[in-house]
């Protein structure tokens, strides 16, 4: 079946609404408008205003209401327009969703799913382009998903809804229009493991979400030069699939982490640290990183591009790592 990432996501939401009457979608402009990125287009007409629930502009209020509704037995899907706006709901996410189970000594779990758009590449400037999923991956109690493929766009949501704890799904804005083939019977997928998207033996390129296409491009370029890169899609930023990361590095002895977040204090730093801590003697070269330049993302196209990880930069980092033969 030909489809797009956006349509796969929508199919997942529709499927969840049909499967479980406790499920509902709520957020700003998810209903009458059709979703700010048109993910929920048509669902308002199909399921009505109770289950496709438009909210006022009150991120903290409706995220908190999602937590409360989850505590009250519902299975809410809360959509936040972009990760930048989720900062207005940080209190609810960090102080309530992530803590209630622990503070209550195991009495109150929060089966809530929150979806939001992340990332740059669309000239939206510094208040709509940031990649803050790495921040959220810092928080114990949250599960952080970054679907990068059609299969994951279609399959992660249902598994997330079955999860007893809060799950945040980050959808990179440049992926919505990605088109491809999806199996007609595509369904739920696991939300705990990383996936090898391209096997290789010379170097591990470790990434997630919006940078997966650029990393795959880089791997193709490198193959033409005789460098056989393995591409590992993390899929889940918390908890990290350490075994997959270390297993890949054990095979290739080299690693470059590609992360659209800023380098300082990032998930790429975490990965680099874990590889160094646990696989130091497997390494033939220092762990490399390709991240966004440390600026608020600029509007001008050439500047935005200059700030982001591109296939060229990724390939260059890989060549450097391979060149540094131990």
């Amino acid at each position, binding site marked *: 079946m030909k489809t797009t990432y956006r349509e796969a996501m929508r199919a997942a939401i529709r499927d969840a609404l049909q499967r479980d009457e406790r499920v509902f979608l709520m957020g700003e402009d998810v209903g009458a408008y059709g979703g700010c990125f048109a993910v929920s287009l048509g669902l308002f007409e199909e399921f009505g205003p109770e289950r496709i629930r438009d909210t006022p502009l009150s991120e903290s209020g409706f995220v908190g*209401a999602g937590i409360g509704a989850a505590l009250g037995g*519902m299975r809410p899907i809360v959509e936040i327009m972009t990760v930048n706006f989720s900062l207005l709901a940080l209190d609810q996410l960090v102080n309530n969703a992530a803590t209630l189970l622990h503070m209550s000594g195991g009495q109150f779990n929060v089966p809530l799913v929150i979806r939001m758009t992340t990332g740059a590449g669309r000239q939206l400037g510094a208040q709509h382009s940031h990649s803050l999923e790495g921040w959220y991956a810092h928080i114990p109690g949250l599960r952080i998903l970054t679907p990068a493929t059609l299969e994951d766009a279609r399959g992660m949501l249902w598994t997330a809804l079955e999860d007893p704890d809060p799950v945040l799904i980050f959808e990179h804005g440049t992926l919505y229009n990605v088109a491809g083939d999806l199996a007609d019977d595509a369904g739920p997928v696991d939300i705990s493991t990383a996936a090898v998207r391209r096997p290789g033996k010379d170097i591990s390129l470790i990434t997630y979400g919006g940078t997966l296409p650029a990393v795959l491009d880089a791997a193709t370029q490198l193959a033409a030069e005789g460098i056989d890169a393995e591409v590992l899609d993390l899929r889940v930023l918390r908890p990290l699939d350490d075994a997959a990361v270390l297993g890949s590095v054990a095979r290739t002895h080299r690693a470059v982490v590609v992360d659209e977040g800023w380098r300082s204090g990032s998930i790429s730093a975490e990965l680099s640290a874990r590889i160094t801590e646990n696989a130091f003697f497997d390494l033939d070269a220092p762990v490399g990183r390709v991240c966004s330049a440390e600026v608020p993302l600029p509007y001008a196209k050439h500047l935005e591009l200059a700030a982001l990880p591109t296939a060229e930069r990724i390939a260059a980092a890989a060549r450097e790592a391979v060149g540094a033969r131990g």
Partner: protein
Amino acid sequence: MSGTAARGSGSSDSDHTRHLLHQMLRVRRLEEQCVELYSAAKIRGFLHVYIGEEAVAAGVMSTLAPDDAVVATYREHGHALLRGVSAGAILAEMYGYVEGCCRGRGGSMHLFDAATRFYGGNAIVAGGLPLAVGLALADKMSGRSRVTACFFGEGAVAEGEFHESLNLAALWQLPVLFCCENNLYAMGTALARSESQTDIALKAASYEIASWSADGMDVLAVEEAARRAVDAVRSGGGPHFLELRTYRFRAHSMFDPERYREKTEVSRWMERDPINTLRKALEDAGQLTEKDWKKIQQDVDAEVKAAVEFAEAGTLEPVEELTRFVYSERRPQ
């Protein structure tokens, strides 16, 4: 006995009023015990007591049904107790013992109890309001006629979450009872120094929420206001808002030197002590004998004593269990 037992249908008004007196005294003595235990270093962390404000929790709790939900703040020992959490489980929690209502994970500011639908214990000012809205949303979407009572201080009124929550509750006509405990101070900040409009019930009314204030030092007035509101909420009347005018007799927490208010102000309010006032009214009406009062005190003292013994006998959760309850232990697959 818990406050949720409310008024038995056969009991007379004076029985019920004596019951409320008893409930307030339970809170008072438990709080006094907490202060003592804090001074003895048995309890640590932040401790906020409810002394002076007992009529608010006692009056509201007595109008709730067992399957209603309660959301409260960090000043919630009394709410938990009157909701039906045992004094022993509350004290053991403050001791940090596994026998505590949250296995020692929460402490004084984070009491939770699934059995009585007590959803905390929230130490972020106004952080509980959105949760209450969501609990009520779940009830409304599921066609249940339960009420969610949400307690918060007047300090919360300045927070964005207060306004977002009132708007959502009114917009969606959710079964929430907002109970603002207006004790005139947020730590050291007097209401008039933090709000351009100090009539809080009026503020709430601007969201098209039925809203009124009641004398929070008079448990019967609180109960009457709450009963009217709870009945309306339960029968589909949408959210209601009560501003309960009260006063805290003690410091904000154990670390507060109280530089911001006059001793005379405190003593003026203490003349309106909700327990003494009700006791006197009952005595004057010939509805409380010396013997009755003695009995109430003895019962409360025995309850608190037993709670301390329970807490003292508590045990520490093994450190190996430190990272439990970060994620649920029962997962699908």
